[in-house]
């Protein structure tokens, strides 16, 4: 039995800044997980990942990350993605410190 496809977002690091970015519905990049497109169809996710990976002048290392869809947008299911969304725990640096 193939495993059931769970909701995903496409995430990567920005080429110039190195910070975490997510793919949006309109194939743009956002710094905010809540603005990321939630992909629920496996074929669509694979295709959009290939397209994201081909955008080598924007991002590095695009991959699919598991999320749960909530009213507040996608939420990470794994602690690694939670840290990537937030920043380090020893200093108030990174995303948590960025004013929007």
């Amino acid at each position, binding site marked *: 039995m193939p495993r059931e496809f769970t909701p995903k977002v496409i995430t990567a690091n920005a080429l110039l800044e*190195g910070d975490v970015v997510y793919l949006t519905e309109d194939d743009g990049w956002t710094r905010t997980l809540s603005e990321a497109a939630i992909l629920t169809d496996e074929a669509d996710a694979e295709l959009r990942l290939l397209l994201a990976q081909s955008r080598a002048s924007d991002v590095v290392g695009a991959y699919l990350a598991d999320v749960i869809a909530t009213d507040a947008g996608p939420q990470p299911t794994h602690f690694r993605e939670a840290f*990537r969304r937030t920043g*380090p*725990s020893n200093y108030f*640096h990174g995303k948590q410190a960025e004013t929007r």
Partner: protein
Amino acid sequence: MYTYTEFDAAFVAERNRQFRAQVARRVEGALTEDEFKPLRLMNGLYLQLHAYMLRVAIPYGTLGSAQMRQLAMIAERWDKGYGHFTTRQNIQYNWPKLAEVPDILDALGEVQMHAIQTSGNTIRNVTADHFAGAAADEVADPRPIAELIRQWSTDHPEFQALPRKFKVAVTGSPMDRAVTLAHDIGLRIVRRAGQIGYQVLVGGGLGRTPMIGKVLHDFLPEEDLLPYLEAVVSVWNSIGRRDNKFKSRIKITVHEHGIEDIRARVEARYALIRPLFTGIDQQMLGAIRADFAPPVFRDAPVDGYEAARAADPVFRAWADTNLSAHRAPGYAIVSISLKAHGETPGDATAEQMRVMADLAERYGHDELRISHEQNVILPHVHKSDLQAVHAALREVGLATANIGLISDIIACPGMDYCALATARSIPIAQEIALRFDALKLEHEIGEMKIKISGCINACGHHHVGHIGILGLDRAGVESYQITIGGDGGPDAQLGDRTGPGFAAEDIVPAIETIMLAYLDLRTDPSETFLAAYRRVGMEPFKSALYGEAEAARAAKRKAEPHVAA
């Protein structure tokens, strides 16, 4: 200290110019990431969890005040005002922007520093005893040979695409503060019958498959060392495994072939290449050695120091833990703790770096060292200046009196920064330090080295911690495995696993349990944790951690005869 020749300066400048062009081509889209990645890694630039990370080499951990000030300037201008000193005597900047890295490298070049070969499958920054040239117990200063190895290995055409990374450490002291038994090659300068020579250890390493190094050559004359090293790396370069990166380090090569086979191959290769070394390396070593001539130590009274010790208990506590014996009368080696309770191990702010630079310039013959234990050393301070040094350190939060104690923790960056990490290290270190400070047990416990790694790669040296903590991802939850009885000293040993791991919220109580068990069972305060563990073994600690039932089960398993499969 070694100063760059015209050749060194031109080489670094040229590499920086090349890298600037490579970055530009990457940004323009002329280079793919696959093409660019090995180039940036050869210049110390990683892409981590939240940002790029630049790893700057501090060769054999030695730097002067001008270099430390430049590191502070870089931290402020291009990073977030701090730097992280690592277990390989490097400094890492956690937040550089890609396009600015060439400027950072140029700024490093201005003070004779670089980030070359701090990553990639090359010979990495050579590390050395952080008390080199100062320790009372030293046979010889390991830095001249470390510098010669740096020059030999930098851009060595044969060794730019090795099976994997290759790490060399050198100690000149029988106390081995460089963990030479856990390096691809460990060198120990020894004196036998009045002669200085090198004991060559090979195949040590931590990581996924921890191994203690083996003696490859027991006593090698200095003039033969470089060709011998070249023979070792050359043999491994040709027979080291490239089919599986987990089996590519020389420790696996030595393990699979056996030390005798490796020795025979090295001897054969050595015989072939030895004639190519016609003595120029020895001339260069002679010139390098002159650069490392000891400073002119002054002869001054130390009455003021003794009086201050008697009068000021805070100063006395600091002096008791943070000073080490110097080879010159009236002098001390000062270890500046980058482990203030609750702070990030190994981090220093730009302001702290400047204060340390000022102190080195004013009181320390302009020398600083970075220890693999992530502290900063002022190697040569006259005792009459210690009170002033301590007062200045206090003002910037650098006077923590905890060297060698439970809060002097090695911790890798872990999942707060590192893309390879499987769990966080830093918060665990912070919590342990705060907990034992609150309990006021730190000095009661005495000598204790806790080392924490956030993944199996073991940058935090957890295998050789008296207590080692390894952070893992267990079904999507951070989990911490404990080893005890490890030792990174001259008779290095790997620690033993206590049993099942602990959740993040249980790991600090678990460490407390181990410490209380130790305090309970030690014969007297002079019996260290390590000595007590060697005397009583695992069972009392296992019982304390997991209860009697689990300890009994473990004892039974151990007692059952091993049945070969």
